[in-house]
């Protein structure tokens, strides 16, 4: 039972991390109608920046804050240099152009940081465990990921639903010409939104960095999960992305943890042990297929955001 609760917390933590990535993706799509494959590169850059800055400053938190700022700036630079010219173009053009950006950033990282990858060591005060429930200890770092991500969720909610800039963002999503005609600097708004999405991806990357190694291509597999989430949740819907991310995080983590045992009830031990890894990594795609059969536009279509 304690193990089960721990796995649920792991699933929640992974889901929240995926949400940070998917939120940026769905925000950029919902508002600028832009498909950004290079979102995973920003995730990777966030992790590399954090590892570098943390080594320079000697402080994990300071490194993380600097990395966040750096990813925000890189995101805004990408928007100004490349993305701005892609608005209103075919989605296929977005796919190709951002695919080009992925190649560029992967190679740039190899050029600057070398091919071998990096690690971001945790400070000792995070490298402990905390008693979350009577009898259940949980990694302090993973718990802090959950707390930070939940804070971001609340922040995003207030930003989009309760502030003037959020109002402009929502207005820009439904009719960008009209908002521009009313005298709002729509170009600046889009740059800021893209930067925000980039920073969210960077945050996800730098928080994941101490758990996994920082390496080239780390953003690509998780990017595809983020795609699955945006599709399940309904593209352009932040609420949908949140629900889908938690769902995917839990299913993926619990699937990996318990699928072997579940299969063992039906099949022999060997069959279960060989089939389980492949089948459990298929589970979320299966979920996506089922959602699409029932609701081709995703759980929360963009109109209901």
């Amino acid at each position, binding site marked *: 039972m304690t193990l089960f609760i721990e796995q649920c917390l792991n699933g929640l933590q992974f889901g929240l991390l995926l949400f940070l990535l998917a939120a940026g993706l769905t925000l950029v799509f919902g508002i600028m109608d832009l498909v950004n494959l290079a979102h995973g590169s920003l995730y990777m850059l966030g992790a590399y920046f954090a590892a570098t800055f943390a080594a320079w400053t000697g402080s994990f938190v300071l490194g993380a804050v600097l990395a966040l700022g750096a990813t925000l700036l890189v995101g805004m630079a990408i928007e100004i240099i490349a993305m701005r010219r892609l608005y209103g173009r075919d989605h*296929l053009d977005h796919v190709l152009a951002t695919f*080009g950006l992925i190649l560029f950033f992967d190679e740039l990282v190899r050029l600057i940081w070398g091919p071998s990858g990096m690690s971001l060591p945790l400070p000792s005060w995070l490298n402990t465990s905390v008693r979350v429930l009577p009898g259940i200890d949980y990694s302090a770092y993973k718990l802090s990921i959950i707390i930070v991500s939940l804070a971001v969720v609340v922040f995003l909610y207030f930003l989009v639903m309760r502030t003037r800039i959020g109002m402009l963002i929502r207005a820009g999503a439904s009719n960008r010409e009209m908002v521009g005609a009313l005298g709002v600097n729509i170009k600046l708004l889009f740059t800021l939104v893209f930067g925000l999405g980039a920073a969210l991806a960077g945050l996800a990357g730098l928080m994941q960095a101490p758990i996994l190694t920082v390496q080239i291509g780390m953003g*690509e597999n998780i990017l595809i999960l983020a795609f699955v989430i945006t599709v399940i949740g309904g593209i352009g819907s932040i609420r949908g992305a949140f629900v889908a991310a938690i769902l995917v995080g839990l299913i993926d983590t619990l699937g990996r943890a318990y699928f072997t045992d579940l299969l063992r009830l039906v099949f022999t031990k060997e069959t279960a042990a060989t089939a389980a890894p492949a089948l459990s990594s298929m589970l979320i795609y299966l979920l996506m297929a089922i959602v699409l059969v029932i609701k081709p536009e995703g759980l929360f279509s963009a109109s209901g955001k």
Partner: protein
Amino acid sequence: MSGWLSTRNIATVTLLLALVLLPVYVELTGSRFLLTLFTRIVILAMAAVSLNLILGYGGMMSFGHAAYLGIGGYAVGILAFEGVYSGFVQWPVALLVSALFALLIGALSLRTRGVYFIMITLAFAQMTYYIVAGLARYGGDDGLTIQDRSKFFAPVNLSNKTQFYYICLTLLFASIYLVWRIVNSRFGMMIQGARSNDTRMRAIGFPTYRYKLTCFVIAGTLCGLAGALLANHTDFVSPAMMYWTRSGDLIIMVVLGGMGSIFGPLFGAVALLILEEVLSGITEYWQIILGPLLLLVVLFGRGGIDGLLGKVRHG
């Protein structure tokens, strides 16, 4: 139609002649490397031709086309591993399995459109990638070495590099001809109509879903054949064959060559792979040049190579 001597026709005939005569040049200069490179180009061009059928003519933006390349390849690899080397078994199985996968993926994906379709085909291709990477018996992540190439009747020998090149080239020409026939048939008109306006096609009584699914399966099957060839070419299959960046490469070939043009994907494949070869000769970090180059092609080079060759549209 401009006359027979248009720039496009001259360029196309020159390229085709160069491809046919390449082994002669290789014989004269002894540069076997060129033959290996061009066999690869021809095979990937075939995959691009099949993608062009759904992407260029059908408007179905599949970002998971490399999955069929891997499925076709693995059909050959797994059969060879189990001791079945006959091409008469291997190739039909490769076609059949790719067709089945395309049917399954297409049936679910075609319920959606636009960006959803891009992401779903991508996700399904990744799923196939994970299935294959999980096949511990067949090498898992590390891939599977193929001991011997597909066997056909006596004079046909796939291990002979020149012969294999000509077999690939013949199959490429056959696929281009097939796509040309499909595109100009009633079925092809239907598909192109659905690309322009799906609702209107349905309103005048065409069940577009069924037509598009058929088209999707044809393209997947054709790509599966290219996969079977690729497995024979490299004598090795691995999940990397179907990694999503490979799907991206195929899209680049189609767009670079010119979407919805009969010979476009061939031009695109030749251009991209030769560019890769040249750039990687200049610097180890060649993708740092290729990436921005792609961005520039998207921003300024609309219509691809086919667009550069003149305004007349084929098909």
